[in-house]
């Protein structure tokens, strides 16, 4: 428990003034979900992703997505070896514990889907051979919402594979001041060391699943999902409902609770539901948060 607290504190050292977002990101990773960071350039998305990787003590790689990126650049390629007279598999950057996929919406759909397949299956199939990905395996992707020129927006079926979408937003006044005073974030990042070791991370992930979910909470989640299906044209999928419970469990673990409370579901719901709702409902970018709030207000808490 205290290790988790340390981890949160360590990330907060680097990313100033964003405690809620940091907790959401950690909850997402503890719930074994992939994370999508969406915001304008320069608010610290990449820094946050770096910090998370370092603090969680994960082996990580960064992959800059561009329009000419090929699937083989992501997952790897089989090359014919003249000496052994056999094809040999050269693993791509996806074979790591934490993959930082920068500006994912700038790559072609083909490259995107190669990555998204790996995210879902946690394995890569090339030439009929299946290569399992390391355990744990996370994808932290970033994208710019406004930079639409030359960008291929992720289709909703693929957005669904991200457990959460988190927006950082501009820092508040004090944090910005502190940021200006402190200077280079990169140096700080270099100085950040791992707080959790792999065993502790695994234990934390197990602890997330052990968070008690009572019948009233399941009732509540089901009511939310059902309401989303009547409130909007396309509601939340069963996978979204599953993710909602899991992400809320991760939040509950960070809040040091033993049981899931409605407050935990409410805390993670905007991040879990917004990117799934806004495109389906045609609300457009930035409208997801409003839709999520609308949904929460429409469903009474089980008392």
């Amino acid at each position, binding site marked *: 428990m205290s290790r988790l607290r340390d981890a949160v504190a360590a990330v907060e050292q680097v990313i100033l003034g964003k405690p809620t977002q940091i907790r959401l990101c950690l909850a997402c990773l503890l719930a074994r979900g992939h994370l999508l960071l969406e915001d304008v350039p320069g608010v610290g998305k990449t820094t946050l992703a770096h910090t998370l990787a370092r603090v969680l003590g994960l082996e990580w790689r960064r992959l800059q997505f561009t329009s000419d990126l090929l699937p083989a650049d992501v997952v790897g390629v089989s090359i014919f070896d003249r000496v052994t007279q056999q094809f040999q598999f050269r693993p791509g950057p996806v074979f790591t514990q934490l993959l930082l996929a920068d500006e994912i919406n700038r790559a072609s759909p083909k490259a995107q889907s190669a990555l998204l397949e790996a995210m879902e299956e946690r394995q890569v199939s090339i030439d009929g051979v299946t290569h399992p990905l390391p355990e744990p395996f996370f994808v932290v992707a970033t994208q710019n919402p406004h930079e639409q020129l030359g960008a291929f927006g992720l289709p909703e079926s693929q957005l669904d594979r991200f457990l959460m979408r988190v927006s950082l937003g501009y820092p508040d006044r004090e944090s910005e001041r502190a940021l200006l005073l402190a200077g280079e974030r990169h140096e700080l990042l270099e100085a950040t060391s791992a707080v959790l070791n792999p065993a502790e991370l695994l234990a934390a992930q197990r602890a997330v699943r052990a968070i*008690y979910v009572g019948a*009233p*909470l399941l009732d509540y989640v089901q009511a939310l999902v059902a309401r989303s299906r009547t409130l909007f044209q396309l509601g939340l999928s069963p996978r979204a409902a599953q993710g909602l419970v899991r992400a809320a469990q991760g939040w509950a673990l960070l809040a040091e609770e*033993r*049981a899931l409370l*409605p*407050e935990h579901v409410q805390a993670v719901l905007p991040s879990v539901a917004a990117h799934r709702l806004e495109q389906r409902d045609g609300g457009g970018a930035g409208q997801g948060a409003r839709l999520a709030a609308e949904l929460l207000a*429409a469903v*009474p808490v089980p*008392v």
Partner: protein
Amino acid sequence: MKLPGPERSGALLPIAALFMAAAINAHHLAWWCLPMLALATAWHLRAVLRGFPQPGRLARISFAVIVTTGVLLSFRTLNGLAAGATLLVAMTAAKLFEARTTRDWHVICGATLFLLLAACLDRQELWRLPLYGLCLWLCAAALRSLAGGAPLPARTLLRESAAQLLRAVPLAIMCFLFFPRLPGAFWAIAGDEEAITGLSEEMSPGRIARLSESDEPALRARFDGAPPPPVQRYWRGPVLRDFDGFTWRRHRDPVGRTAALEYRGPAYHYSETLEPNTHRTVVALELSRPPDAPLVTQSADFQLLSQRPILQAQSYELTGYPQAVSRGELAADARQVDLALPPDRNPRATELAHQLRARAPDDAAFVNSVFDWLRRGGFVYTLVPQRLGRDSVDDLLFRTREGFCGHYASAFVDLMRAGGVPARVVTGYQGGEWNPIGRFLLVRQSHAHAWAEVWLPGRGWLRADPTAVVAPERLSRELLQFGDGFGSRASRLLGEQRWLTTTLQAWAALNAWWQDDIVGFNFTKQLNLAERLGFGDRGWQTLAIALGAGMCAWLLWIAWTLHRLARAARPDAITRAWRRIDRRLARAGHARAPHEGVLAYCDRLALTQPVAAATLRPLARRYAQLRYGPPLPAEELRGFLRAARAYR
């Protein structure tokens, strides 16, 4: 496995119960038994906590063989309460070596309950009651800890099992009152006679270097009217007639009834509770008519003998006649026994007796002259006399000149017999402490006394107490408290502290009540009670009706309790309670939005109403735990409901 934290402390309860049960049996266990149990427990804990290996099968079997041999060596038997209890403790300790499953622990708890039963069978003193109760409580909590489900802290287990035991108390009382008791202590297991202190069937004054003062009670007498005056409080025990020059013993062969007793003078009717003794004598006020009890007879020398060993405290209804006299002639065989002296022993005493007898005109004068000689001889009364040689009487009379009642009674009877007067030693008790709270006379082992009886022609057997002559202050001064001068520690303190007197007397009275009305609650008393409660007077049937009626009432009560608990434990009770709070808050103008979680609501309330939020928050926390969390004990729920009702 890690050290059990507070939430797992319940796992230690079975061991605690076992230790408690062994401790209350400590008085009759073999000395090696408790240390061995401690050792086995230490080993077990080490194995569980540190992963230390448990002994293998061969080691366990050898251990069992060794402890069984140990019990045989210590007790020479495996039968009986003490040997059985020791074996049980030892084998339970062995069981600790292989205790892994819940079933093993159930076996250990069962053995623990048996040990408690053994202690209850063996000792029933009042002061042990809290210990037995505590042991039972631990056992119940231990069994509760084995009942499965999540491990609970010891405090919770103890609280819950206390509630369970309290619910069972009416049942226990009913069974106590109405379950038919077989007359007589059928569970009294023979053995352990050597453990009982007090009078015995022989007396060797010369061997004793120090007389211990035991405050243990010997008997209690509750008189119908006033008790007899202190000088008449002689309680007759074993009569010792055979003397070998050093030791006095009981005469084994029955000698013909020589004299009829004439009961005359004031009569004192009393009920006596006699503590266990080894000499099978119903120690009674001199001289008491034999009681109605079937197995008690009066011997020719006026002892009341029980045909059965007195292993449990017994009650008798008796009538004492301090002025009773014996009439008629002394039979020839009895005279022979009461004049017998070992040849060639105590020559100087024999010579002295001959001289005094020659000077005296008759037997009565001879008795008086011996008294005179003792009175003038400069004899000293002491509880720590010097040891005496083979000719114990000569040694006492002419060399050491100090001793206690046994010495003087022995020497006096020797002189009497040497002078041709039939005489014998009577042992028993003298005196007794009057308890004004319980209105009974308490005779302690420290009141033990020995005196003499002489036969005078025409007057029959007469009591002659040489100790009264040698040390008159011992008997005359406040007989009430000092008896034969074996002043007990308690009675010495009594003289100084008034409140202590009262406390001790109250305690003694409480003990008397416990012994007479609780431990001694027998079939007759049961029938009387059932009849008084209006269940008729048809013996066994009466009790069956009373028991049945009581059981029905108890079952109804239990059913009602269960129903009430079940209703309170329904989950919607939580919801109802919170809705009440919601309504209250809404009336106060702080309505919670329907989609707002209760804790989030507290946070919002804290912005505007910090005080109200501070009082509400603990309640909201408990509510959230109960409503959304894993199932909690019913106590938590009831506690929350109480707090919710109390919320303003």
